[in-house]
């Protein structure tokens, strides 16, 4: 699984961090998404799919 984030679309909700904290973080100054792991291991796949699903700005795309 490859994760692609769109910083332009990101609204800094941080829902992705709550769903998969090993894969996503937020910038300190403006809260925009920081991708910690663009190829997360299989055991995190379901969390990452949840993170993409709960993103209110559709800023996370998965290439499975």
């Amino acid at each position, binding site marked *: 699984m490859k994760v692609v984030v769109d910083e332009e679309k990101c609204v800094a*909700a941080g829902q992705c961090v709550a769903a998969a904290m090993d894969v996503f973080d*937020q910038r300190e100054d*403006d*809260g925009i998404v920081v991708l910690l792991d663009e190829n997360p291991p299989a055991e995190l796949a379901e969390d990452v799919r949840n993170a993409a*699903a*709960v993103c*209110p700005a559709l800023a996370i795309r998965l290439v499975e």
Partner: protein
Amino acid sequence: MSIDDVRAPARVLVVGASASGLTTVETLRRKGYEGRITVLGDEPHAPYDRPPLSKQVLLGTWEPERATLRTQDVLSALDAEFVLGDPAVALDRASRGVRTESGRQLRADAIVIATGVGARRLPGSEDLAGVHVLRTLDDALALRAGLPAGTRLVVVGEGVLGSEIAATARTLGLDVTLAGPLSAPMALQVGPLVSGVLAGLHTERGVELRLGDGVVGLTADDGRVTGVRLATDEVLPADAVVVAIGATPATEWLADSGLELDNGVVCDSHCRAEEGIYAVGDVARWHHEGLGRLVRLENRTNATEAAMAVAGEILGADRPYTPVPYFWTDQYDAKLQVHGFLPPDAEVDVVEGDLTARRFVARYRSEGRVTGVLGWNMPKQARMRRQEIVAGLDAPAPTH
């Protein structure tokens, strides 16, 4: 993930083709559901996202297509039948059937009600040229087309949507007045302290705030709006008016269904209106077990989270839906993030940053518990305090 084949319904009908309806379908498929899914939508458009309507779409920085939630290919891959442009007009509980305006009869084993809300209007304003609401994509495009340079716009309603529209219109360089009965923008949603900061921001950016006196009606000439009349009888001149005075749950079509309707479709803690019938998103008023009362939320995150919860429920998850609500609003360069609930009588403390610098986190407490957190240009710092709200939700409810 395996599904309980005995419990999983053979056919699911989702009534409503917006964020919540679409997420219901996507979650069902993601969890391996292979039954038949039909999605019924009242608008002709493929599912689209609403938060950008009052921001990027109205501002014109996004082409309307960019608000579309999924490409046609992604929708097709869901293997669901989308019936669009055909509103539901009646629900028969006994047969789990829905009738549409065009006369279709759709039956299913599980029905998900996701019809959202409709914009409230000022009585007598429906046929006046120059009067707008903002709920749908078509509304947003009509409003944008109705705001040529030099327009004097009056926004009626000082809630989240009205405040956003005022900010966007002002950014477009228009002459903007914000009117409404409360004392400051979003006073009901964020309380006196933060709404005071918002009032300062709007004033500084050139919005004329005419708040505190309710609006009683519109003035018109030859079928076109000319102004907004306040309770004081003063008239604010206007070339265009946006009415943003809230929304009502779209439940008219359920009036004869026998389902309990009271400011939304009343549901149990699992978003069930009754066995096999669920409600999600803006239209659902469900029992939040963490709060011990019925709650209806009109925000983007709830549209997704409730849909995910109900999709799980349909497949046998059996878990109450107890979210910490979240919404955001962007006005000029201010990005406000709200987690939890901000009761109007809450005690508010600035726990990080600085009000005057317009970069802070405010914590809201009520009856000794943290009920909510608001971040102003501090999204990460606000989100990191979510746990305090969760702890408050889990504590035993105070007795009254």
